[in-house]
């Protein structure tokens, strides 16, 4: 009995800080967040790794807040690439209710009927989204997605290793930084940079333009230290590499860790990306999912998310809450003129172009020598050798028999 009382006290003691923490989050009063309370609902949310304010001591835990507010349990999973998410949905093994893919993947999913139309009646906070993010090219009628975060691709470099002023993608092809250059380890971003450098469109379907980009990438390979995705954090923060292209939000995080790092927004222009919240066709709890999307767009929550991960928010109310320092940071919130004239978003390409890009990327990554013949010789040798051994063994047996 005594033990039970003790346990109850302990539980109560644990509750107090949790309750006070909750008291800080204000949500819109006229939205009924309680309608699924007590129904034992579980919402499956899939997001990029490190892309929401969860499990952190300094910032509030968005999913916890949602659970205490609505009584809906959140089952939070992460993935590391758009293609991984796509593969999981395609194989039918995943039953996500809420996903956050990027622009080009959203248009591909819409094309393949993998997303549900949203009921915006349930997402009144959609009105907070900045007008310039409405009706985007990946979802022209704006029926399937609610923008979550956006940003641009920038160059991040270590001022101790790079003395020059950098203002162009050409720096990534500069022999001076041989062995100190990192590059995207995914074809879409890597080709994107090579295409912009040559003044082509990111979404070109022209084979000769893609070929030129591939040649540039092959040329660059000689001076590239390694092809990375999230490994970049360690390498740039630790000073193992001098210069690399990466997403602006992550560049902000890296610069916080290592003050020697600086950034550049290339003059040729860059890729602007938007990640937006969607509901897959197979979702079990559509209305609860829409409630979750609305919750993500509560000013306080959107503010917590964008300050925690460092990306830019399309939510105007959350933007107003930001410090002036962040609001005026051209890396996170570039001026409208640059955004208008110099940035381009990825679109879903035709299957033929996707296939062709993939093939070119393989050529870039693989060693140049074509060793078909070598392989064949090896196989033949192996078979011949094995026959020879068998014959010799048979002979030996015969000899032994005598």
């Amino acid at each position: 009995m005594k033990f039970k009382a003790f346990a109850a006290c302990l539980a109560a003691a644990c509750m107090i800080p949790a309750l006070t923490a909750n008291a800080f989050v204000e949500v819109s009063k006229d939205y009924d967040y309680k309608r699924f309370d007590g129904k034992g609902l579980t919402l499956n949310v899939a997001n990029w790794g490190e892309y929401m304010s969860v499990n952190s001591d300094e910032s509030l835990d968005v999913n916890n807040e949602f659970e205490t507010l609505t009584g809906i349990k959140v089952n939070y999973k992460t993935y590391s690439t758009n293609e991984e998410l796509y593969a999981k949905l395609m194989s039918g093994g995943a039953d996500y209710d809420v996903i956050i893919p990027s622009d080009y993947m959203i248009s591909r999913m819409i094309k393949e009927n993998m997303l549900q139309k949203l009921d915006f009646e349930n997402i009144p906070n959609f009105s907070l989204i900045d007008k310039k993010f409405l009706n985007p090219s990946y979802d022209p009628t704006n029926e399937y997605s609610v923008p979550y975060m956006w940003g641009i691709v920038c160059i991040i470099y270590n001022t101790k290793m790079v003395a020059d002023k950098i203002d162009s993608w050409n720096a990534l092809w500069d022999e001076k930084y041989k062995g100190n250059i990192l590059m995207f380890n995914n074809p879409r971003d890597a080709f994107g940079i090579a295409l912009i450098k040559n003044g082509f469109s990111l979404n070109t379907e022209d084979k000769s333009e893609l070929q030129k980009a591939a040649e540039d990438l092959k040329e660059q390979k000689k001076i590239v230290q390694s092809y990375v995705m999230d490994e970049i954090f360690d390498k740039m923060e630790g000073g193992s590499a001098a210069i690399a292209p990466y997403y602006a939000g992550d560049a902000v995080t890296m610069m916080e860790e290592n003050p020697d790092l600086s950034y550049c927004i290339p003059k040729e222009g860059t890729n602007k990306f938007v990640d937006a919240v969607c509901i897959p066709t197979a979702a079990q709890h559509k209305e609860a999912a829409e409630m979750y999307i609305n919750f993500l767009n509560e000013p306080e929550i959107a503010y917590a998310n964008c300050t925690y991960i460092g990306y830019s928010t399309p939510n105007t109310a959350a933007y107003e809450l930001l410090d002036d320092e962040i609001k005026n940071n051209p890396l996170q919130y570039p001026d409208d003129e640059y955004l208008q004239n110099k940035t381009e978003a990825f679109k879903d390409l035709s299957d033929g172009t996707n296939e062709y890009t993939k093939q070119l990327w393989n050529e870039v990554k693989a060693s140049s020598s074509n060793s078909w013949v070598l392989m064949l010789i090896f196989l033949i040798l192996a078979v011949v050798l094995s026959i020879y051994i068998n014959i010799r063994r048979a002979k030996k047996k015969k000899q032994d028999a005598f």
Partner: protein
Amino acid sequence: MESTKTKLIASPYIIWMAIFIVVPLCLVIGFAFTTKDGKFTIENIAITAEYVPVLLRSMWLAVISTAICLIIGFPVSFIISRLMPNRQGMLLTLLLLPMWINFLLRTYAWMTLLESNGLINKFLGLFGIGPFDNMLNNQGAIVLGMVYNYLPFMILPLYSVMTKIDESIIEAAQDLGANYIKVIFKVVIPLSIQGIYTGVTMVFVPSISTFIISRMLGGGSNDLIGDIIEQQFLGNSYNPHLGSALALVLMVIVLLVMSLFNQFGNEENIAI
């Protein structure tokens, strides 16, 4: 009676094999020979020709790391097997100690060590040596990662075979005038050939199909066949049909190499 009993005891494993080995194998074969629409095709297998350089690289690196593992593992396991039993236990525990730590973490640690700003360079820097810039992101680093991760899989089977070699056999050989080298080549190696075979299999097979070691230590420009296969399922280029075809080709090659090696092994046995 006896055989039905044995069959009964073996049945859980047979059922396990049927469900989790035979069925997936059939799925791989099924995927490899079909298109997205489910029609029969051999195009997937034909496309794998594009990846021959990668396949060769994977085989080459796997062969090198297996050889290094054997060269390091053989003397170590022989020495351990000749020690007092209580010492043997301690050394084996030490050998297995790193394996208590997660595989990914151990590989990740090598990244931090080998980085041009990493711990090794910093340590050498204290004595004014270095820094060495090219320790990471090359094939050598991949081989290092493989040897480091798979060495226990070579030592353990070798050790378990070598402990069974009776000391008196070695003494007999020495009595008959064989020197140290002759003892190793004429007595120890032939008697532990089964262990060598098992060890080589257990190192070679995971080495040839590894993907995370090459990604972490190879710097993304030394993709192995495992990386390519992984990309077909979870990565940038989603195509399970091509992935299955590649996996099938890899499987055939591994079987071929292993059977070849097995024949060498048998011949050694006969020669004695």
